[in-house]
């Protein structure tokens, strides 16, 4: 086994790792960094050609028990490749559920702590959005790009519900930038055909190609080496060969399945390691409209309805973010002249991290996901949103509401290495440092203490920028 020395080893190259590294490198001088990625370097063109974002079959990466599928990308750039570019912030109350509603947990980080980092992350991703959303998500900076054009139903809703309905904020460019084109509304965002969506290849190559960074590809981290409460490095497998890297700081940013698996293989365990894995409960719903044409907006999803998100119902039922689709997700209608009288929605409801939904490892050390079920809190949240649907969309001529079914996955993995103050109830502290191995930083959505309904990527990025600031200040 060969051995090399670094100042920092970063495991994984998705949102959590790259945003950490971007800020860390900007604030550091002559440091040596190893970036260790399990997957390959495959450009967006190669991913499109192969019709796969991931360079590895996920069957090879983890086992699933319980009938629910989980999805992620193994490859340079991680989730920046497969994501669809949705960048909502979390709401202030998402961070203080215990103190506001008496359920779940408060985050050790609050919205105001994160707000400047949200702005920084939006600037890096060149997010498009409408300032009006500051009504529910206070903002100190304008959006880098203007919002996408709303569809006709969106316009009606935004006018009728100015406090709850807003244009989406998204990292799909609404106009051309220096390195990206404007979104084509083609609805193929995993393989964006016009380079409009932010990804590692159009937005983070300065980090990946930084001369201070050595990139290791096709390198599966098997374990983190440690002596007592000090991490000393990692061991990775590349083909049949094993290599050891040494460093003063290890940053673990694989994902919420692989990061806990690495900790478990390394025998760095706390009672909650791997427990609580969850994602939003999601349904496809269609509003059939009487006489309003849809699908004339500027990108694949154009509006968000927050009417079933925050409020007293969260004491007993999860928040739901309603995503309004600007494409015929359920097909055009067949009746003559009524082809576009359809408003497809995706309802994302927050879930509770439950201990029985967890990541373990097999005897061979492969990650294994055991999933029992979504919580009753999530199910009640969906029912709550459905019970309000007519009221929420009363500005539109809705003739029928059709539930098309539950979605298999939202491709979000969260909460398996939660942040908190008590090592018995959480795994990392308010920065992301492991409670017992203090030079081991965990980044990514695995550290989220709760699972709000909004898409996680922007919050992952903001948390990583903040962690880098805190470690280098």
């Amino acid at each position: 086994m060969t051995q090399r020395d670094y100042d920092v080893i970063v495991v994984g190259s998705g949102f959590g790792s790259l945003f950490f590294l971007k800020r860390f490198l900007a604030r550091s001088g002559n440091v040596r960094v190893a970036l260790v990625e399990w997957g390959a370097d495959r450009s967006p063109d190669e991913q499109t050609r192969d019709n796969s974002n991931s360079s590895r079959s996920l069957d090879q990466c983890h086992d699933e028990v319980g009938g629910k599928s989980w999805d992620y990308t193994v490859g340079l750039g991680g989730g920046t490749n497969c994501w669809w570019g949705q960048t909502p912030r979390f709401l202030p109350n998402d961070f203080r559920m215990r103190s506001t509603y008496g359920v779940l947990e408060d985050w050790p980080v609050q919205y105001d702590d994160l707000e400047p980092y949200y702005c920084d992350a939006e600037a890096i991703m060149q997010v498009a959005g409408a300032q009006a959303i500051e009504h529910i998500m206070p903002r100190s900076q304008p959006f880098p790009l203007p919002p996408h054009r709303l569809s006709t139903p969106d316009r009606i809703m935004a006018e009728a519900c100015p406090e709850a309905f807003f244009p989406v904020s998204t990292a799909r460019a609404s106009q051309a930038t220096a390195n990206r084109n404007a979104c084509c509304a083609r609805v193929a965002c995993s393989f964006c055909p016009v380079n409009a969506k932010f990804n590692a290849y159009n937005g983070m190559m300065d980090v990946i190609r930084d001369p201070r960074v050595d990139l290791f590809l096709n390198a599966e981290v098997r374990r983190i080496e440690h002596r007592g409460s000090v991490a000393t490095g990692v061991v990775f497998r590349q083909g049949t060969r094993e290599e050891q890297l040494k460093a003063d700081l290890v940053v673990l940013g694989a994902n919420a399945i692989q990061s806990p698996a690495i900790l478990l293989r390394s025998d760095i365990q706390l009672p909650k390691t791997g427990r609580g894995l969850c994602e939003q409960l999601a349904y496809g719903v269609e509003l059939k409209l009487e006489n309003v044409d849809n699908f004339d907006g500027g990108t694949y999803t154009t509006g968000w309805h927050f009417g079933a998100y925050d409020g007293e119902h969260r004491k007993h039922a999860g928040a739901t973010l309603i995503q309004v689709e600007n494409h015929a997700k359920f097909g055009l209608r067949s009746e003559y002249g009524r082809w576009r009288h359809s408003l497809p929605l995706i309802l994302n409801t927050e879930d509770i991290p439950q201990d029985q939904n967890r990541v373990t490892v097999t005897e061979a050390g492969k990650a294994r996901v055991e999933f029992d079920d979504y919580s009753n809190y999530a199910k009640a949240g969906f029912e709550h949103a459905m019970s309000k649907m007519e009221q929420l969309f009363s500005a539109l001529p809705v003739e029928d509401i059709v539930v098309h079914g539950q979605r298999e996955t939202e491709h979000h993995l969260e909460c398996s290495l939660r942040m908190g103050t008590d090592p018995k109830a959480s795994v990392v502290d308010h920065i992301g440092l492991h409670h017992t191995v203090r030079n081991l930083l965990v980044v990514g959505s695995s550290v989220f203490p709760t699972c709000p309904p909004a898409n996680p990527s922007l919050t992952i990025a903001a948390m990583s920028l903040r962690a880098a600031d805190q470690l280098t200040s």
Partner: protein
Amino acid sequence: MNLSRRTLLTSCVAVASATAIGTGFLAQTLMGGSPFRTYVKRIIERRLPYIEIDPKTLDQFARDLEVAWAPNTKQRLASFAGGFGGSVLKMFQPHRVDWFERKVLTTLLLSSDFFQTGAKKGSQLTYYGIRDDGCSAFSYLSDAARETIDLD
């Protein structure tokens, strides 16, 4: 094991349906046909009665769709169930079948000159070949788009 009357009846119906579908599928396949293409053509005839499409063109569309959607097992299963008039899927998941059928007719309408020529009843449809671009055509040709995009 206690077997309720309802469970027994449901099981019998399921086995009978599966057998019928399997036999029908086998028979049609042995005769050189394709349940998928047959089903696609029936969908178009039944759900878009106001369009005119040459039978050879419709057959070409069905063949193209079969190739384009070949990897999708769920769509294949839906076609088997739908192709024999019926129907296990329709009984248990009518919205899933409706979704599938709407995806078929959407693909034809967006892969043709239907909207470009004014969506007139009874006009002969020109099919261009499978086009799968979401609804971006509406995004760029709508009144809302004209307000913000200089198409000239």
